[in-house]
Each structure stands twice: as C-alpha cells, then as structure tokens.
C-alpha cells in the first residue's frame, strides 16, 4: 500500500483546497496534518477573513489566495478549482478548515480517483458507523437531501452535504466553469451526475468542530433547505452542458 501510494502520487499533481473564513485557530493544525503527505500541495482560499487566517496559513506552509471580499463557500471553493485548472493539477481535494475532516483519510478518498474508479469521491460520515454525532434537525436535513439526491441520480448517497471530496482533472475543469454559489455541496453532486460524471461515496471518520461555530443557524437552515431543493430541481430542467 505504502509503496504504491508513493509512485502514484509522484506521477500526479495533487492539490488540497481548504476554503477558510475566520479559521485562524483550527487552520494551522489542518495544514500541518495535510502536509505530512509528501507531494501534495495545499491551497488555502481565504474568503475575506477579518482575522489572521491568511498569515497563519502562509506560516503553516500553505499557498494562500486572498479573495478581496467574502464570496461564500461556493465562490471560495470554485476559486480553488479555477486555480487547480490553471496550474494543471490532476487531482483536487476539498478539505474543511475547521478540522472536521480527518487528513488521515486523504489517501482513502484520493485513491479511487487516481485509479480512475470514479470522477469524484465523496467522503461520507454515514456509509458505515464513523462516530459522527449531529443534532436531530441536522440529521433530518441530511436525510431529506439524501432521499432527493438518491432519487434523482438513481444512486444511493448517504451524506450529500459532506465537503470532503476528491475530483479528477475533468471535474476540475468542469467546476472551474460551473459551481453553485451558496450551499453548493448537494447541488454539485446533482450537477455532476446530470453531466455524466461518476461519483463514489466512501466512509470517512469525522470529528466535531475544534473551534468556532457552524455557519448554519436555524433560520439559515430553512433557507438552506429551500434554496438547495430549488437549485436541485432547476438542474433537472436544464439540458446537460455540451462538454463532459
């Protein structure tokens, strides 16, 4: 396993994209744990933070892109894909800045992409028991999205809101042009499926947030549900893009 990892990584340019908004406390730890893997570049997209996110990321050895103002998670992540596309990366991995995603699973989600088993690999909290605990409302929301996306795509997805995902070069190119703006995770899955990309969901372990609070408040979560469902159904009414 170890040996194959090394050679495969050497032949591919891999970029870890970490969108960050006011994450100065958890960011250094996340970057350090990702950088343990040799040959993987780290890009932090600082989404108009007011704290020292940019300086802290730079100090921890990451490449940093500073956006001139806050674009929201979708705009920030897409910046990463655009950068990956321009720089010719073969694989891009999205990792949350808050420490919820365990970098030790990195190889696990990159591997199927490298071996061309799927265009995107989704790191899921629920495929098997992974010790992740969520509030009831959140579980309900995740369940609804899971049903809707599974129904539309004809493939079972358990954790559609997970932001821990790896994609290949074709998806990088696609995302550089087409990426939803706010609350993009669920919609991105439908978008990929509609455009003929394959997605594989694999179990990962996830920790609760180390610092700070989730950006989702009760009122926002209602908006979240409605916006995402509308966006998903709108995707069904659109013709697939000619590429892909």
């Amino acid at each position: 396993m170890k040996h194959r990892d090394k050679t495969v990584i050497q032949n591919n340019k891999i970029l870890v994209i970490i969108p960050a908004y006011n994450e100065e406390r958890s960011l250094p730890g996340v970057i350090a744990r990702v950088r343990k893997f040799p040959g993987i570049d780290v890009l932090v997209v600082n989404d108009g933070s007011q704290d020292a996110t940019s300086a802290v990321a730079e100090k921890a050895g990451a490449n940093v892109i500073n956006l001139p103002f806050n674009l929201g998670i979708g705009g920030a992540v897409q910046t990463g894909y655009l950068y990956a596309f321009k720089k010719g990366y073969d694989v891009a991995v999205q990792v949350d800045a808050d420490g919820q995603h365990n970098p030790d699973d990195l190889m696990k989600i990159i591997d199927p992409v490298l071996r061309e088993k799927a265009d995107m690999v989704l790191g899921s909290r629920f495929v098997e028991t992974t010790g992740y605990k969520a509030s009831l409302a959140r579980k309900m929301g995740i369940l609804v999205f899971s049903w809707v996306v599974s129904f539309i795509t004809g493939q079972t997805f358990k954790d559609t809101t997970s932001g821990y995902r790896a994609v290949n070069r074709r998806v990088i190119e696609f995302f550089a042009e087409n990426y939803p703006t706010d609350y993009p995770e669920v919609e991105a899955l439908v978008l990929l499926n509609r455009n003929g990309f394959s997605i594989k969901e694999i179990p990962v372990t996830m920790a609760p947030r180390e610092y700070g609070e989730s950006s989702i408040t009760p009122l926002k979560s209602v908006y979240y549900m409605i916006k995402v469902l509308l966006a998903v159904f709108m995707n069904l009414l659109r013709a697939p893009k000619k590429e892909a």
Partner: protein
Amino acid sequence: MKVDIFFFSALFSLMFLVVVLEFVRSKRLKEQYSLLWIFISVIMIVFALWRDLLERVASRLGIVYAPSLLFIVGILFSFALILHYSVIISKLHTQNVRLAQELGILNKKIEDLNKRVDGGKTIEDSTADPV
C-alpha cells in the same frame, strides 16, 4: 383641457419621459436600460391623453372606472422592470464573483513571481510608497 386625473397622469408621464431622456443624454442611464422606461412613459401619455381609447379598452376588459386601467398598466410595467433588474443583478453577481476569483489568483501569481525574483525583495518593497 380639464385639470383632472388624466391631466395629471399625462403631465407626470411627460415629466418622467423628459427626466429619463435627460439621464440618457447625460450618460447617467445606459440606453439599453432606458428603453423600458421610455416605452412605459409613452404608453402612459397616450392613455392619459386619448381618453376615448382608454375608456374603450377599459370597458372591453370590464373595468368600470377607466383610470384604474392606468394603475394596472403602471403596476404591471413596474413588476416587469423590477424582474428585469433582478436578472441584471444576478448577471452582475456572477461576473463579480468571477472577477474576485481571478483577482485573488492574479495576486497570488504576482506574489509568487516576486518571491522568485530576487528572493522576495520586490519592486514594491524598494519603492517609497507601499502598495
């Protein structure tokens, strides 16, 4: 001419049209965004001055009080305009996001290049005013 609601409607619409045209002339309003305004102004003026037409259209539509047709026309046009602006705002939003992304990437590129040239001692560092 009687000074009544039709008179005021016509007068207001005419003033409105003049203001819109002045904005276009002074380049405060782009031609493509002025067309709907000019269109609605002219329609309102025609309806307000040509009472016979207004009454005939109103009775055809079953509207007893003819001037309320003016209100309906005005309100419907306002909705159309607002929707038109929502579409424009969405387009501007998309363009704005892309500009911010490209700007961020370009800034990173410049910093990377600066670091490569003269080990980080940049043109910006050596000039008197910091950028």
